[in-house]
């Protein structure tokens, strides 16, 4: 294991991808993912790795290009944010349908409008049902680790699905953090070469991306859903392998000081680190509070959530996106669904927070936790935290 180096997280993400022996990358730069695209282009142009970088005119083409490459058996990568992800929308559900293990870096950013380049989760949430696997990093180290894990997860013969690694835009992508890089030999040991299920080659003609008539479409959906649900087992297993080799632990739902906790607060993404500080402070004051950090967004870890909330009286769920006119925050709706038929489930309070780059500070977590009983009494399904009334 090498010593930690100080590096901007987006640049570190590109360095991590470069350790993964990729064959083809295609990215269209967009804030805040630009530095991933730029730095990876540099690495390839400088000949540090043997890969092709396809310069495309749009994100729609970027994903199409890497899917074509993936179809030939190449290990592929793309990265984007917000409007770029929106522009990929038409292609996004086709990648998992074709079972192509493309890896994508997402520097999460609010979706327009109003036009906003800062962080929240509205981009990935709007693409939630595209069928990609989705994992969230809390910090730069996790982002680096997750990119290396992502290729192994996506390419596993029992998975063969694309995956996106989510890093909060600016809050993560643009900060310099101490990061420990695995060596090339360690990555090679962890990540075997990609063995495609099938690949395009003139010597063995086959068709990908075929038509599905009403007689077959339902079966195609079922097959894909089973693969997605089953991916969780492989993800957990690969995370355990990672922990064994590198000593850093990953679980679908990570817990922090949850022993004996009556109040739990749940975060997804970089807010988790801020919440830890708040939990530390409140624990010192004698408040029985703990933290749950959701690392796996798709497939959603229903069982792990049920287990993690056991014994808690109140569960405060934070969401960095809103389903307009819907049940509130998208993370909270999944959690409500997970707990609906559970006996002794905790009371749930949902805060929509950190929208369009608004800071979420330690004291905000204190206020959310302290304000939970009042929020519950209001009867509202969710609160938009900090909105000026």
């Amino acid at each position, binding site marked *: 294991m090498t010593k930690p180096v100080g590096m901007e997280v987006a640049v570190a993400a590109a360095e991590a991808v470069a350790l993964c022996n990729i064959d083809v990358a295609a990215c269209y730069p967009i804030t805040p993912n630009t530095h991933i695209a730029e730095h990876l282009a540099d690495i390839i142009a400088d000949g540090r790795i043997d890969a092709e970088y396809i310069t495309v005119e749009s994100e729609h083409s970027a994903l199409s290009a890497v899917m074509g490459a993936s179809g030939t058996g190449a290990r592929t990568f793309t990265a984007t944010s917000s409007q770029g992800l929106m522009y990929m929308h038409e292609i996004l559900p086709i990648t998992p349908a074709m079972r*192509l293990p493309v890896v994508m870096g997402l520097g999460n950013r609010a979706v327009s409008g109003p036009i906003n380049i800062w962080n929240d989760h509205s981009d990935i949430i709007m693409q939630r049902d595209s069928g990609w696997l989705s994992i969230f990093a809390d910090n730069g180290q996790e982002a680096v680790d997750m990119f290396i894990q992502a290729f192994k997860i996506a390419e596993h013969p029992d998975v063969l699905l694309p995956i996106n690694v989510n890093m909060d835009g600016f809050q993560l992508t643009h900060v310099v953090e101490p990061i420990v890089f695995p060596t090339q030999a360690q990555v090679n040991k962890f990540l075997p070469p990609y063995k495609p*299920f099938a690949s395009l080659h003139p010597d063995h003609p*086959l*068709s990908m991306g075929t038509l599905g008539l009403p*007689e077959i479409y339902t*079966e195609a959906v079922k097959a894909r859903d*089973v693969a997605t649900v089953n991916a969780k087992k492989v993800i957990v297993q690969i995370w355990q392998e990672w922990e064994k080799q590198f000593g850093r632990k990953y679980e679908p739902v990570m817990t922090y000081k949850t022993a004996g906790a009556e109040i739990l607060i749940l975060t997804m993404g970089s807010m988790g680190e801020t919440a830890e500080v708040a939990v530390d402070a409140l624990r010192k004051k004698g408040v029985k509070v703990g933290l749950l950090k959701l690392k796996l967004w798709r497939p959603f870890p229903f069982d792990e959530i049920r287990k993690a909330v056991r014994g808690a009286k109140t569960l405060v769920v934070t969401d960095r996106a809103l389903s307009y006119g819907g049940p509130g925050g998208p993370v909270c709706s999944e959690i409500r669904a997970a707990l609906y038929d559970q006996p002794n489930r905790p009371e749930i309070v949902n805060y929509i927070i950190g929208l369009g780059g608004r800071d979420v500070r330690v004291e905000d977590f204190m206020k959310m936790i302290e304000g939970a009983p009042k929020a519950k009494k209001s009867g509202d399904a969710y609160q938009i935290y900090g909105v000026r009334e």
Partner: protein
Amino acid sequence: MKKWPETWKEYNTGGIVFEPGNARSFKTGPWRSLRPVWDNSKCIKCGVCYIFCPEGCVQEGPDGFFAADLDYCKGCGICAHECWPSAISMIEEGQES
């Protein structure tokens, strides 16, 4: 060959089709409600019907005249529309030409 997989478990990963040219076994002729009928006395053998057929099912015979393979012709009428001397007419399926 089975037309459809019996259950979802038989659905090939990613819907990949491993048998080259298997579109041949998928006959689109039954979709047709109108049928193209050639009047070779008007035909100038220009081949426009062959070029324009989106199904690729118009073929040239040894005599230089053209005809549709009715196993695949969807009856879209493009050949009849494009034919310069109006040598092709579309008639209701089931009617005599």
